[in-house]
């Protein structure tokens, strides 16, 4: 079957998860008070960011390490590092 939604797409992937997040929202208040659109929750290709009313939940385990959130956050509010060597997403094909 061809995938129909993001959950099915993410399910195709292999991750070697680190225990520590390589993505850090620096100040959740900035998301709450200054960023009505919360665009990271829209454009992140892996739906890593989810707004939970008062804070941003960061599901770093499913991250593709593309860097869009670091560049696209209008408030430079995301600290973005690479996962520890050998960890994170493992593309097997393309």
């Amino acid at each position: 079957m061809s995938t129909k939604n993001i959950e099915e797409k993410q399910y195709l992937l292999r991750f070697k998860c680190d225990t520590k997040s390589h993505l850090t929202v620096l100040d959740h208040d900035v998301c709450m008070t200054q960023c009505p659109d919360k665009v990271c929750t829209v454009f992140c290709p892996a739906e890593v960011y989810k707004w939970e009313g008062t804070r941003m939940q960061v599901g770093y385990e499913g991250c593709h390490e593309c860097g869009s959130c670091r560049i696209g956050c209008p408030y430079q509010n995301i600290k973005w590092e690479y996962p520890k060597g050998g960890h994170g997403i493992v593309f097997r094909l393309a």
Partner: protein
Amino acid sequence: MPEKFDVIVVGAGPAGSSCALTCAKNGLNVLLIERGEYPGAKNVMGGVLYRKQMEELVPEFWKEAPLERPVIEQRFWMLDKESVVQFGYKGLEWAVEPYNNFTVLRAQFDQWFAGKAVEAGALLINETVVTECIVENGKVVGVRTDRPDGEVYADVVVLADGVNSLLSKQLGFHKEFRPDEVALTVMEVINLPKEKINDRFNVEDNQGCTIEIFGDSTKGNLGTAFLYTNKDSLNIGVGTTLSSMIKAKLKPYELLDYLKNHPMVKPLIDGGESAEYLAHLIPEGGYRSVPKVAGNGVIVIGDAAQLVNAIHREGSNMAMYSGKLAAEAVVQAKNREDFSESSLNSYREALYGSFIMKDLEKYKDAAHTFEKYPQYFNDYVPMMNKAMSKFFTVDGTPKREKQKQIMKSVTGEKGTLRVLQDIYRAWKAVK
């Protein structure tokens, strides 16, 4: 591990492996550092690998490299909601040696290519993140990694750390990129039996087809979609500038599903089985976004130097060629025992004198023009579709009358002057 290398290359993608291979072939002591489990584990590409630059690194590579299909047909689609205007070129001269380009799956290809650098004598260390360049007295002298006691030294550090290049940013070679300088692209690999691919794309075994899709594939936003044939699978993907994605509040995976379900696309992928989903950024800022590429003890190559020609979907070939040019500059610097910026600037000169920077210069205004004036994707693609539909629908209207009506519908909507302005602007951006 010896304490000091001649060269440390950060990142085992096409640029890094090309540089490591060329350095090793010239007798230099090379360390190639890769953060993934294996080279290719973090790398994504739509899938077209050009023969020319690769062949200069590994002659007749097609006899041994893991390739999918030689591309013998390149199609271009101007897509509207329920129609498409198509053009393209198919030629059997591309079906025989030396070929023009190939579809590839990068996780396999990159492992093979890095292996060639290892065969030539480079030392490859996987699963290692370079956290920063070690700078002493204004000169890069090595790298710090996330391994215990992970400091390694070299005469030259070559940054092939990809589109995000945190390392060249750390050195102050460029500021953080703007959302209009990168394209966010997502794709799926969809398994489909070889016979079905051959039938649907009208090719034989070992013949491939690529389709670049403009217009409704990005819902009129600045970007493109693609559909490429592998041996037993298809790569289908879509991307727009990150700024367009933000402005239009697009979810990239929803855009991909929109494309997959488009009536012009769906029959081609029907019955396929999704095998992988991948997201990556493409550096599309072009000429003006290219950072400083050489400093004291350091060189920047490939995506890290933003070397992508988005208009011609060229990137990995530029990455490889820049890696080769960098290696040649390092070899010269080694002969002089001078690794200063002025010595390594021979790379910069070679790069700016090559097809890479000449092509980027040619299109330096293209992305900006198409971002600023969205009518090219928004208005003209549907207009072309309507014009073709009208022209080829036989309804008793004389052809001359039809031509008049079509011209009127084009200029009537916008006014003759604006159409002429649009044409002139687009021509200027790509001339």
